C-alpha cells in the first residue's frame, strides 16, 4: 500500500504541474514533477548569465583520467626505431640536461627500453595504436590523438593537481567545477558534476587520488564534484536510515516545508526558501540516484558491449556504463579517475593488466554514446598526469622494464563533439623524449575543452584573492585548432 504521504505528494505535484505553476521559490522551481520535467528551465543548476559564450559543440564532458601516468611509449607513441637502441644509453643530446626525478637520477645508466608491445595502424587514418588496446583499434577514426601534451610537474601529487586544476599548488577549482560553475546543468534531479573512482587491478602501492582533483577550490562549494560510490550509499546519505521508508521521509518533509514556510513569515530570510527547495531536491535524488545506479533496464546488447565486468560493482567497466547513464540524464561533467598506472617496474605485465581492466569499456562508452546520438555533443577525453621515460628504471631485460616520470611529452586522446576523428596531432622525437612539432600544454588542452563547451577560456574568470583567476593560467593558452572539426 502506498504511504499516504507519498500519495498526497504525488497528487500535489501533479496538480501543480497541470496548473503550470509549480511551487516557485526564489526563482527556483520546487517541483520537478513526475520525472518528465527534468529539462524545465531555469532549473536548479543555472548557468552564469551570458553562458555559454557561443554555440557549443559539446554539451557534456566525460573525462577519463588514468591516474599514475600511463606509458605513451607502450600505448600510442609508436617508435619503431627504438629496437636498435635496446639497452643502449639514452644519448645525452636527447636528454639535453633535462631534470629527471630522484628515483632514477642515482641510476648508473639510463638504458633505452623499446616497447615490447606491437603496434598497428588503425582505421582509415592509420593511427598507430598498441596491441594492448584492441577494442580501440576500430574506433581510431573517432579519436583525435595528441602526442605532444606536456605539463609542468614531474611528480604525482603536483601533476595530478595540475592536470585537474591547472595549478600544482592545492586550492584551485577543478575543471569539472569550473564547467559546473559556468554552464550549470540541465538535470534537476542529479548533481551537475559527478565523479567516479573505480577499483583497479594494481596490487602494489597505487598512487593516490586527492579530493582536490574534483574540489571547487575557491568557487562556491556546490560546484564540487559529487562522488558516485560503489560501496555504501551511491551518493552520500541518499538512503534513508534503516526503518525509515520513502513515505516516512515524505511525511517529515511535508511537515518540514510547512514549518519552514512559517519561518519565512517569521524572519523573511530568502535562505529559508532556498533550503526548502534543496530539501525537495534531496528527496528527488533519493529516487533518481537509485534509479540511475540500477542497471536492470539495460539491454543485453549494451551489457555485452561493455563486457562481463559490467556486473562487478566498482569496476571501471560499470563506472563507464554509469557515466553514460549520468550523461544521458543531463549531468554536465562526469569524471572517472582510474588508478594504478604508475609502472616504475614490471611495466609489461602491469600495464597489460591496467589496459585489460579499462580498454573495452573505453571503447564501449564511445560506441554506446554514439549509438544513442549523444557522442555528437559529448566530449570524451582520456589521459594521465604525465608520460613515462624511454629509459628503463631498474633492470632492463628483453621482456621486462620499468619507466620513470616524464613530463615533457605524453599522449591523450579526445573524441566526440567537435573533435576531428582520425587525427594524430603533434610529433615527438625518436625517443619520445622531446616534442619536435606542435606542443600542447595542459593549459592549451583545457582551453580547448572549454572552447568546445562554448566558453572563452580567457574571459572565464572568478575573482579570488584580488585576482581574476582562471583555469588556464596566467600565460596565454592556445586552443588546439588542429584537432577540431
Amino acid at each position, binding site marked *: 500500500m502506498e504511504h*499516504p504521504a507519498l500519495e498526497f505528494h504525488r497528487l500535489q505535484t501533479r496538480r501543480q504541474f497541470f496548473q503550470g505553476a509549480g511551487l516557485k521559490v526564489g526563482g527556483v522551481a520546487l517541483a520537478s514533477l513526475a520525472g518528465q520535467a527534468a529539462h524545465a528551465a531555469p532549473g536548479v543548476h543555472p548557468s552564469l*548569465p551570458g553562458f555559454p559564450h557561443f554555440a557549443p559543440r559539446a554539451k557534456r564532458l566525460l573525462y577519463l583520467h588514468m591516474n599514475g601516468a600511463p606509458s605513451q611509449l607502450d600505448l600510442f607513441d609508436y617508435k619503431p626505431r627504438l629496437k636498435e637502441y635496446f639497452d643502449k644509453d639514452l644519448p645525452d643530446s636527447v636528454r639535453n640536461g633535462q*631534470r629527471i626525478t*630522484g*628515483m632514477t637520477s*642515482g641510476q648508473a645508466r639510463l638504458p633505452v627500453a623499446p616497447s615490447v608491445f606491437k603496434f598497428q595502424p588503425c582505421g582509415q587514418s592509420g593511427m598507430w595504436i598498441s596491441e594492448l588496446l584492441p577494442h580501440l583499434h576500430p574506433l581510431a577514426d573517432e579519436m583525435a590523438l595528441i602526442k605532444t601534451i606536456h605539463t609542468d610537474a*614531474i*611528480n*604525482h*601529487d603536483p601533476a595530478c593537481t595540475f592536470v585537474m586544476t591547472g595549478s600544482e599548488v*592545492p586550492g584551485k577549482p577543478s575543471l569539472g567545477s569550473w564547467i559546473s560553475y559556468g554552464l550549470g546543468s540541465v538535470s534537476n534531479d542529479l548533481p551537475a558534476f559527478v565523479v567516479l*573512482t573505480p577499483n583497479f587491478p594494481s596490487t*602494489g*602501492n597505487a*598512487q*593516490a*587520488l*586527492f*579530493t*582536490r582533483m574534483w*574540489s571547487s577550490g575557491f568557487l562556491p*562549494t*556546490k560546484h564540487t564534484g*559529487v562522488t558516485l*560510490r*560503489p560501496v*555504501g550509499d551511491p551518493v*552520500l*546519505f541518499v*538512503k534513508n*536510515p*534503516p*526503518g*525509515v521508508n520513502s*513515505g*516516512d521521509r515524505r*511525511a*517529515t518533509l*511535508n*511537515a518540514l516545508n510547512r*514549518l*519552514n514556510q*512559517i*519561518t519565512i513569515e517569521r*524572519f*523573511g*530570510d*530568502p*535562505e529559508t526558501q532556498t533550503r*526548502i527547495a*534543496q*530539501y525537495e531536491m*534531496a528527496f528527488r*535524488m533519493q529516487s533518481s540516484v537509485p534509479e540511475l545506479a540500477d542497471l536492470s533496464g539495460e539491454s543485453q546488447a549494451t551489457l555485452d558491449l561493455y563486457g562481463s565486468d559490467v556486473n562487478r560493482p566498482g569496476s571501471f567497466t560499470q563506472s563507464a556504463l554509469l557515466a553514460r547513464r549520468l550523461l544521458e540524464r543531463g549531468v554536465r561533467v562526469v569524471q572517472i579517475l582510474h588508478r594504478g598506472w604508475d609502472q616504475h617496474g614490471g611495466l609489461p605485465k602491469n600495464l597489460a593488466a591496467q589496459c585489460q581492466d579499462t580498454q573495452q569499456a573505453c571503447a564501449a562508452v564511445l560506441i554506446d554514446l554514439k549509438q544513442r546520438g549523444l557522442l555528437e555533443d559529448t566530449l570524451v577525453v582520456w589521459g594521465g598526469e604525465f608520460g613515462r621515460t624511454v629509459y628503463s628504471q631498474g633492470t632492463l631485460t628483453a621482456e621486462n622494464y620499468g619507466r*620513470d616520470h616524464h613530463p615533457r611529452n605524453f599522449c591523450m586522446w579526445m573524441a566526440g563533439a567537435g573533435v576531428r576523428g582520425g587525427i594524430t596531432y603533434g610529433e615527438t622525437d625518436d625517443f619520445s623524449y622531446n616534442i619536435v612539432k606542435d606542443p600542447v600544454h595542459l593549459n592549451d588542452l583545457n582551453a580547448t575543452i572549454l572552447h568546445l563547451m562554448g566558453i*572563452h577560456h580567457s*574571459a572565464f574568470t572568478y575573482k579570488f*584573492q*584580488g*585576482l581574476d583567476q582562471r583555469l588556464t593560467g596566467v600565460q596565454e593558452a592556445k586552443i588546439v585548432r588542429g584537432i577540431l572539426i
Partner: protein
Amino acid sequence: MFGIVVSTAALLAAASAGPVQFNRDVRPILSDNCFACHGFDAKKRKANLRLDEPEGLFTPNADGVVMIQAGHPERSEIWRRIVATNAEDLMPPPETHKTVTLEQRAVLRRWIEQGAPYQKHWAFTAPVAASLPNISGASPLDAFIRERLAAEGLPPSPEADKETLIRRVTFDLIGLPPTLAEIDGFLADTAPGAYERLVDRLFASPHHGEHMARYWLDLARYADTHGLHLDNERSMWPYRDWVVQAFNQNLPFDEFTRWQLAGDLLPGATREQRIASGFNRCNVTTSEGGSINEEFIFRYAVDRTASAVEVWMAMTAGCAVCHDHKFDPLSQKEFYSLYAFFNSAADPAMDGNKMDTPPILKLSTPEQESMLAELERRITEVNGKIKTSITTLAYTDPAEATPAPAIQTVENLWFEDGFPTGAKPQSSGSPLCLVTRGEGEVLSGQLALKRIAKGLEQDYFSGGAEFIVPAGGKLFAHCYLDPENPPAAIMVQFHTNGWQHRAIWGDDAKIPFGTPGTAEKVSMGALPKTAEWVRLELDPARLGLKPGTKVNGYAFTQAGGTVFWDKLGAVRTVDPAKDPAWSLKTWLQQNQGKRVEGLPSHLQTLVRSKKPEQWTEAESTQFRDYWLEHLYEGSRDLLADLKAERAPLEAEKQSIDAAIPLTFVMQDQAKPRDSFVMLRGAYDKPGEPVTRATPTFLPPLQTSAEATPNRLDLANWLLSREHPLTARVAVNRYWQQFFSNGLVKTSSDFGSQGEPPSHPELLDWLAIHFIESGWDTRALIRMMVTSATYRQSSRVTPELLARDPENRLLARGPRFRFDAEVLRDNALALSGLLDRTLGGKGVKPYQPPNIWEPVGFGGSNTREYKQDSGNALYRRSIYTFLKRTAPPPFMATFDAPNREQTCSRRERSNTPLQALQLMNDVQHFEAARNFAQRMILEGGSTPEDRIVWGWRAVTARKPTAVELKIAYDTLRLHHARYLADTEGAGQAIKYGESKADPKLDPAELAAYTLTANLLFNLDETLTKN
C-alpha cells in the same frame, strides 16, 4: 551571485547625489579595469602609464595629455577613452573582456566633476580616530552604525526577544546550544545586566576556547595529516589544544601573534611558546619519491610567507611570487624579502611520511623523562657489552681469506627437544606429549614429540618465534611411525600469514585442509617406512616459501596412528666466501645501490648512494659494526643472550616514547639560507639576492640589534602602533565571525582589489581601541556581542531585503546557517551524547565507508579509516581527525576548508547534499533518537508537552499552536505507521552505537525519533536566528 555583488557595490557607494570618495568609489573601478596594464607591475605596464599613483593620474605627459583634468571630464583622457566608440581608442581594450559599466561611468564622471579629490589607499595608512557620532545612549560601536543608518534613512530593528538572544549568543561564544535550564534562568533574570552576566558566564566556559579556536584553525591550516602524496598522519594536535587554551586564557592578540610567528625565538621560550610556533609548521608537506628538495623547501617558505601575510595583513601576496603585484604596491622583490624571514626553517624538504618530522617538541612529563633516561642507561650498558663481544670475534672476511674457507653444511634447528622459545604450542586431541628415550623413540637430543591420534590431530604453534627460509636450502623433519599403529597420513605445515603451506605423505584425502595442487596442499607420495626414523625433506619452493620468508609457526599433523616427531629445521650449504651472511664484502656487492629495508635510515642512504670504496673510515667502521651485530651469521649465537637482554628494554623505551605527545615546532637552521627573487616564481631560477626586509609602502621595520632581523622582529613590526593593517584585519575578522560579513567584506584582501570598508570610521575606531586595550580579544568580542547592533532582531522586511540583501548596513541582527562543526555539535549536545572532554589526539567518529580508501595511496597509514567507538564518536567536532586529501563529509559538505591552505572566510552554501546528510547521516539520526528519548523521559507525559519541550530545546522558544499541531500530526502519523511495522520501528531505534532505553516502546520511540529528526532539520535549528 553576480546580481548581489552589483547591488552591494551600489549600496556602499555614495548616495547618487553625495560626494564621491576616491577610495570607496573610484579606486575599485580603476583597479578592476586599468591596473592590470597600468598599475604597479612594471613588466606588464603598457604605454609607460601608471594609474595607481597620483602622478600618472594628474600629471600631463610629454604630449600634454592628462588622464584626469579635475572638474572637466571631457578634457580627461581616461573619460574620453572609456566612452570611446571606436575599438582602437576604447579602454579597456575589447580583447580584455572588461567593460566599465554605465553605473561606474557615472561615478567616474561625478568624481571628476567634483574636482577629482585623491586619497591614498585607505588600508595602507594608519587608522585615524574619528570623532564619535553624537548619539545619546549609544555605545561607540552602535553610534557609528546608527549614524550611517540615519544617513540612509533606515531605522535600526528592535532588540530580539530573550529566547533568541540567549540562543544566538550562546552559539556565538561556545558553539553549543543553551540548555533549557539556562534558558529558563535567563528568562527569569529580569534584573538589569542579565544579558551581560550571560555573556560573562559564556566567556568563563572552557568551550569558549574550543569555539574560537575553530576559526583560527582555518587560518592556521591545521590538520592531522601532511597533506601531500601519502598524506600520512602527523602529530600536530598539541598546537590545536594550545590555540584552545590561548582563547580560554584570553591571551592578548599581540602575544598570540608573537608566539605563533616567532615563539621559538623568544628569549627563554616556554613550552607553550614553542608549541605556538607550530603555526608555521601547519603547511602541507610531501615525501613523494623523486621530489626535488629545493623545490619543496622553496614552496614551504612561500606558503609560510603568504599565509602570514594573509592572516595578519590581509594581503594577497601569492601574486608577487611570480611578478610584481598588479594591483597593490607589493613588488616581487619585497615579497622575497618577506620570504627571507621564513626561508631558513630547519624542517626537511621531505617530511619522511612520519608522525614526528623534525623539529619537534616532545611533551613528556618528568616521570617519563627519568624512566627514559634509566632505560637509555641500561641499553647503553648492553650495547657496550655487545661491542666488546664483537671485538672478540676478530672477524676476517672469508672472501679475503686464503685459502678460501671450505663449503659447509649448516643446519638450523627449529624443533629440537620441544617447540622453540617464545612459541606457545597448542594441540588438538590429547595434550602435548614430549618423551625421553626411556619413554619412546628419540632421534636426537633428549626429547621427541609423541602423539597417539584418534582422528586428525596435531601439535603446532603460530607466532612467538620466527625463522627465515634460507636461500638454496631445504626444510626437513623426522618421523618415526609405529608399525603397530601406523597413521593414514602425516603432514608438516608451515605458518606465514596463515596456514598456507602443507606437505602430506600418505592418503591426502584424509586431510581436509587446503586446495589440492597448490602450495596449500602438496602431496609428497606414500607414507615413509615404519619402525625407523625417516628424514622428510621438503623443497621450500614447492610449498610456496620463498627465500627470506619469515616462518612463524609450524605443525606436526597426523590422521590417526602413533607417530614420534623430532628435529625439524632448515639445512643449506654455505660457501662463506660468497655468502652475504658470512662475508661482508659479498653483502656489500649484492646490496650496494639498493634501498635495503631494515637498515637504519642513515646506513640505508649510505649503502644506496655511495660505493664502499668512497666511504670514509668512520662510515666503514660504523657500517661494519652494524653488520657484525645484526647481519653476520657468525655472531648470532654469541650475541643471542645480550640481544635478548636488550630487546625488552628497547620495547619498554619505545612504548614510553610512543605515549609522549609531540608536536611540530618552528626553528631556524643554524646557518640561514640565502634568499633570492625567484624568476617567474620558479624554484630553480634564482635572480637578484635579497635580505630580510618589509615592504616600503608600510612603516619601517625596527630591529632589535645590528643583527639580521628575524621572525620575532617581523612579528613586532606587525604589532607596531603605526602598522595600518594588523589590528584592522583582526577586528574585521572577529566582526565577520559575529555579523557574517566583515566591515571589509573581503576579509582576506585589504588591497585595492578588495572591497573598501562599509564603515571606515568604525573599523578604525575598533582597531585603535583594540590596540589601546592591550590587544584584549575578549574585551573586543564582549563589545561586539553586547552591542545593540548585535542584539537586534534579525527579522527582515522585503523592502529592507531589497535595499540591503547582505545586511551590510546592519539595520537588523545577523542571521545565517551554522558552520559544519556547530551543526554536528548542536545535534550531539541536544541528544545528550556529547562528550565534553577537552583536548587530545584527533578522534575518528562515524564516517561512511569508502571515504579514505578509494583515494588513499596503498602505503599510506591513513588509507583505511578505522572508526572509533564509544565516547570518541561523540566528541566535539574540533577534535575530529582531519585528513586533508579526504576530509570528513560532515565538514566538506558544509563548506569547511580542507586545510590545504589558509582560509579567512568560509562560504555558506545551501545544497541538497546537506539536506541528505542532516536527515540521514547516522550521527544525526542517532542523535535524533537520543533526543527523542529525552523528549519522552524528560518532556512530560503528553505528546503535546513533549513536543513543546523538544521544540524549546532546539529553538529556545515555545512553538505556536500551528507549529505544535503540524509537529503533533506528524508524530501521530509516524506512530500509526510504526505500530503497524514493528520491524521497521526496531530498525529505526537501533541505528548507531548507543542503545535505546529498553523500557521504551519501540514504535513510540521510532515515531518520536522521526519527529526529533524533523525538529533537528528545521531551518530555525540550523540557523543563528
